[in-house]
């Protein structure tokens, strides 16, 4: 038991991970205060998910350490709930059985489990679907089940790995609003991985920009927008400034990730050259 009963403090210090000769991420240090909403953003394949998986307990750091409430992470546990991009609901369980799963693993009795799951499902607007199978739900509904399944056991930290990446724009906005409501209501720490700049700004207190291969922290930005937030804020000068700053940071990284031939800042030139080459080939 920690002294201050702090719940959901995440500390990653000098975290590095190597697979043989390959360095996936190196020297990553970041933190999440209890109740804070923190995003990791960067080009695809940059190692954002590696950091998340280390906090979840699926990866053991090669260097450095990962602490949650001052305890080193040793394997996955229900303390750290995880939401996956591909929902990862159990297809053979009904919506309610999916939500009950974590509680069942904790040894909670059948009737208590049922009551808890029903409460959560009705909060998420899914009470009418409790006996449906995941296959019968739309993507947005599946991810709502995924989120409340991860929250049902009362974790200290919620880890989300591009949770809305597979959803259409409309559904994604609704899901972002729902996640913010849940986060504000539960005062839970959130570590959120995304490559969507607007999403990161709209949701987060702080944003870490991760570089491409090997993954490193390139920048840390605080989001100055007040809460509660609404979609109208995306027109404010603060939002726009932050967005262009993030664009610049990520664009550099994406270009670097595409290879050495493409010099940072000359991506457009390469596109032109390609267009010329294709044009020439036609004649």
């Amino acid at each position, binding site marked *: 038991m920690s002294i201050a009963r702090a719940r959901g403090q995440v500390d990653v210090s000098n975290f590095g991970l190597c697979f043989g000769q390959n360095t996936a991420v190196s020297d990553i240090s970041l933190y999440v205060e209890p109740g804070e909403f923190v995003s990791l953003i960067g080009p695809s394949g940059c190692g954002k998910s590696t950091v998340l998986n280390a906090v*979840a307990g*699926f990866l053991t750091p090669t260097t450095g350490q990962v602490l949650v409430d001052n305890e080193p992470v040793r*394997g*996955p*546990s*229900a303390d*750290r*709930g*995880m939401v*996956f991009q*591909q929902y*990862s609901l*159990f*297809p*053979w*369980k009904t919506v309610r059985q999916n939500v009950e*799963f*974590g509680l*069942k*693993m*904790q040894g909670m009795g059948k009737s208590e489990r049922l009551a808890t799951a029903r409460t959560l499902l009705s909060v998420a607007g899914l009470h009418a*679907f409790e006996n*449906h*199978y995941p*296959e*019968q*739900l*739309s*993507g*947005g*509904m599946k991810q709502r089940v995924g989120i409340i*399944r*991860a929250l049902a*056991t009362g974790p200290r930290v919620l880890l989300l790995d591009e949770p809305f990446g597979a959803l*259409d724009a*409309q*559904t994604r906005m*609704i899901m972002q609003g729902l996640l913010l409501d849940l986060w504000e209501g539960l005062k839970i720490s959130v570590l959120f991985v995304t490559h969507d700049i607007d999403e990161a700004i709209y949701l987060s207190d702080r944003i870490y920009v991760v570089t491409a291969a090997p993954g490193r922290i390139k920048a840390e930005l605080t989001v100055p927008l007040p809460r509660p937030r609404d979609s109208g804020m995306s027109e404010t000068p603060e939002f726009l400034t932050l967005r262009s700053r993030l664009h610049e940071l990520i664009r550099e990284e994406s270009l670097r990730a595409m290879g050495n031939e493409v010099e940072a800042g000359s991506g457009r030139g390469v596109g032109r050259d390609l267009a010329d080459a294709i044009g020439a080939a036609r004649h």
Partner: protein
Amino acid sequence: MPDAVIHAGDTAITPETRITVSPERSSARTVFRRFRGLALGLLSIALFVLAWHLLTTYRVSFHVRFLNVPTPASVLSSAIHAGRDPDFAYNLLISCQRIGIGFLAATLLGVPLGLTMGRWPLLRETLLPLVEIVRPIPAIAWVPMSIMLWPSNEESIVFITFLGAFFPILLNTLMGMGQIDPVLVRAARCLGAREASIFREVLLPAVLPQVFTGLAVGMGVAWVSLIAAEMIAGQFGIGYFTWEAYSLVQYPDIVLGMVCIGALGLGSSALIRAIGWLVMPWARLADGRPK
């Protein structure tokens, strides 16, 4: 609401997958299709029996000889006779019992072994080469060895049946284990599941469709193996009955035996399909729905 759903029965259909045919028309079409399928099936069976009747009644012989082949009518009369014969019923019963024991043993051994071999690479690497060497030997080739191994004829026949069913069940389970999305196991571990719960709550249900494929294939091979073993080494059983009919020149009984073996094979695979349908309610959804 983007994820609004339209209800048809108790399944939710998203707007993208909505069907344009009205429910009444689509159900009328289903009934017609089903009726047409049944009628065509019965027609082909009737034509087959008619051809059989003509070929045997006129004792056609053009390289293939129908001279000694019994007519449908003589098979029917021997079936009626056999229906009153307790020995015939006993033959059927003992064959079913051998299948039951051999198949059950193969399931109880094959499924857990497939699960653990799929989960633990060390066990898989140790046992798979052995399995690959023994598997290609047909169960029938085991008959002499089996007679030497087991003290009674009965046990050796059940062993042959077991061998026939065992490998398809084991290998299908093992193959299914390889196809499980590892993210599901990670999701379970994140929710606090330990190894025993992962087996019970994730791996077993995830692999069930392939297990049932293995059971269906295994049941077919079990019958093949049983009939062969009974013909060679049996004293009772429907395979023994069929071979005995040939030895005793009771030709209608040969066909009767064949028909019974076919019916039992059909019935047992229908039973497996029915059990699969009952224990995998989520798998029923995939039928007849656009993916």
